[in-house]
């Protein structure tokens, strides 16, 4: 068997005779033969043909650097490298006579259009969203930061899937400890098959079992940039439009680009409204249960008659009553996510009008409970981050249970536990509840207010910079 045929056989074997693999013998320069090898599913064949034509023409002129173009490289042939390159979607031309291989990095562009992220609607500001391709995402970010200090480092996740991923940071702005911590965690990732961003955030988070997300998940490039210049690390993969941002504080989840694109006073107002919604979203049902079953003397006299009237005919204890409605609420939410949009509207009507009205007439729950649960649901959806939103909707259940067992005392105990947890939580070894604990008086107002951008030279950070500033970024451009 001649050498070329043998190589073709062994290549096919190396790729397990996959159907979309093309291995073919072609004519090369001056009677030589070459082997063409690529995955038909990954390669843009027309572009490859164009480049090959150019290279044929160059071979005829016998220029020494005939192989060098933007997209091609010439290397010594080695089977492992060859396999890796083909797997990454490159086209291989093996020259058996010289023992060299020419690779053409032209991959088939499978990408969707830049669309506005569906789960993070904003009113003003950029409507571009990240997509499932890392290079497009990097383009979107580089477009916003035209500065070499924006460093992009690549790594692969998944021992078997070899998925490309990147982490980005602004050199000079980022704290070295944070960078080291992130690099250490990335090096420690032990995932064989990587297919979802959730695997990555699990591997990178400080405490996976905490209900609170410690990495911010966003699809907005402008949000990514805003965090980059604050000295945070962004991790992006080639398979998901989500960027993971860390270290973040609890209050980062309550920010949205809208705050900073609207007027100062308006932005501050909505920031405060959103933060207050945390209180109603978590404590309102618990408060209602506690009042109805322990402390009804706090109701004003005028209201108490009405409340008593409503509550009198309900067969269940307040906790059961609340659970019925809360669970219906969660079912409506869950079903409206899974259903196609056209049907999703129906669910809203069924849930809101039919169930909401009928359940009161049927005497299962009281009117006030419907108001309480509706108000709670609305305030929980105010949170701009999907992760924190679901967290908040979940943590109100333990509070309801505590309220039904101990009344206000139970709620207080719950709040203490919640605060202890939030204060001890860290995000990439940085305090999660940052401007409040550890207390930074100068930064606290930023939680509630959006300050005008009139002093551009101040470096914005979420965390207190270290006291000794000596070693810090002399070389920042």
């Amino acid at each position, binding site marked *: 068997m001649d050498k070329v045929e043998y190589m073709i056989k062994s290549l096919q074997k190396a790729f397990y005779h996959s159907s979309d693999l093309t291995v073919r013998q072609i004519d090369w320069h001056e009677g030589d033969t070459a082997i063409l090898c690529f995955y038909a599913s990954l390669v843009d064949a027309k572009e490859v043909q164009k480049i090959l034509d150019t290279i044929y023409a160059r071979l005829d002129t016998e220029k020494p650097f005939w192989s060098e173009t933007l997209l091609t490289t010439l290397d010594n042939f080695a089977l492992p490298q060859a396999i890796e390159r083909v797997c990454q979607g490159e086209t291989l031309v093996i020259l058996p006579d010289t023992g060299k291989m020419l690779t053409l990095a032209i991959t088939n562009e499978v990408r969707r259009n830049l669309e506005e992220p569906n789960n993070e609607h904003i009113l003003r500001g950029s409507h571009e969203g990240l997509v499932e391709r890392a290079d497009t995402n990097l383009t979107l970010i580089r477009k916003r930061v035209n500065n070499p200090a924006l460093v992009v480092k690549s790594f692969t996740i998944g021992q078997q899937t070899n998925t490309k991923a990147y982490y980005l940071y602004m050199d000079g702005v980022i704290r070295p400890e944070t960078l080291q911590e992130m690099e250490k965690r990335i090096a420690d990732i032990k995932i064989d098959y990587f297919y979802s961003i959730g695997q990555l955030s699990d591997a990178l988070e400080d405490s996976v079992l905490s209900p609170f997300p410690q990495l911010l998940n966003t699809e907005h490039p402008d949000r990514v940039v805003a965090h980059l210049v604050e000295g945070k690390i962004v991790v992006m993969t080639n398979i998901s439009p989500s960027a993971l941002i860390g270290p973040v504080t609890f209050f980062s989840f309550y920010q949205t680009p809208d705050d900073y694109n609207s007027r100062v006073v308006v932005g501050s107002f909505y920031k405060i409204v959103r933060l207050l919604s945390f209180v109603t979203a978590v404590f309102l049902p618990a408060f209602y249960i506690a*009042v*109805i*079953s*322990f402390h*009804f*003397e706090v*109701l004003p*006299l*005028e209201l*108490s*008659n009405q*409340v*008593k*009237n409503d*509550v*009198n005919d*309900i067969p269940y*204890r*307040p906790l059961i009553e609340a659970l019925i409605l809360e669970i219906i609420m969660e079912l409506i939410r869950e079903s409206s996510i899974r259903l196609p949009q056209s049907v999703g509207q129906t669910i809203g009507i069924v849930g809101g009008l039919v169930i909401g009205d009928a359940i009161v007439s049927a005497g299962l729950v009281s009117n006030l409970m419907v108001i309480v649960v509706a108000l709670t649901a609305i305030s929980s959806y105010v949170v701009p981050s999907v992760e924190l939103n679901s967290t908040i909707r979940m943590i109100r259940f333990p509070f309801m249970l505590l309220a039904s*067992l*101990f*009344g206000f*005392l*139970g709620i207080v105990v719950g709040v203490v536990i919640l605060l202890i947890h939030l204060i001890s939580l860290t995000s990439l070894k940085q305090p999660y509840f940052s401007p409040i604990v550890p207390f930074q008086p100068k930064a606290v107002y930023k939680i509630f207010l959006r300050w005008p951008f009139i002093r551009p030279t101040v470096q914005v950070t979420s965390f207190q910079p270290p006291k000794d500033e000596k070693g810090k970024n002399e070389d920042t451009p």
Partner: protein
Amino acid sequence: MYRKGIMLLLSMLLLAGCWDERLYKNASVVTLVGVDGYIGAYKGYYAYPNTAAQQNEVIEADGISPRDVRNQANLKVEQTLDLSELSTILVSDQTVREPLYDILDIYFRDPQNPISIKIAVTEGDVKPFIELTKDLAGGAGGYYERFMESTEENTIFPKLDLQTVGSMLFEQTIDIALPYIQLSEDKKHAVAAGVALFSGQTFTGTILTPKQSLTMLLLMNQPSKQARMSYMWKHDGKSMPITADVIHIKRQWTVNEELKRIDMDYLIEVEIEEFAHDHLYKDPVFKEVQQLIQDHVQAEFEEVLRILQGQQSDTLGIGRYIRAYHPKMFQKDWHAVYASLQLVPSVQVKIIRTGVLR
């Protein structure tokens, strides 16, 4: 074993709260309580809203003590009587002839009981006053609470609630004056009829008329939002009404320890709110009106002080003042000393505003 221990601990911790639970739907929220009778034979009335009929239900019970009355009343109600939203206690004028604290004791012992509630003394039996709330759509207690608060704003009733009454009852140096209410002629609503004077823990039997109680509150330097006084001004053979609203009072008491005499100087600044004759800007008219009001107020002050001393009711807190600033003069049996004091009021009225009509 380990698992059993955890289960036991958890259930002990979690179920402990259930003992304190009191479900709203199992409680009858009493807003108005009436007390009649005397020790050994009390009669109690409890008004609570019947939510279905939009009416107030009244439960009547007898017992030997206020607590016993409540227990007896509980036997007649399908749910538990709950007094945590109580807003008013009505006591008949016969009952307060006995020490008032006998009735109030149970309200202080229960931590769930509010202490910001109002107390009023009724003319005659309490029953009709409670019954008239039956047809009210709103709460029974709320009716009396609003009634008393609005009267307080007109400076007829002193601003008192259970807490202040409780602390004053045990103080020798100051006495309380509780709101006194009557039935209207058609017996459909309550009428503010002044204040009932107490001496120590017991009702003296004397009632100040609304006008007198306003004077008393001015003496106490407690004018509320409005404190209106109306007088007739005789001028050129015609009578002309004048109404003055007290804006501000400055008082100064000068004590002469040897003579046991207190000079009570009051400077009262008023606004004229009604004066159809007009021309108040003319100096003679102005002076005359000012003098007229001053003379009237002076006379009223003297009269009210005489009544208060006659009943040994130190609602002004003169005893407090004496004990604080002239401790030598203070004696343990204060009420007797108080009655023998020489109180000399002198009033100066100043018109500082005449309304927007110049």
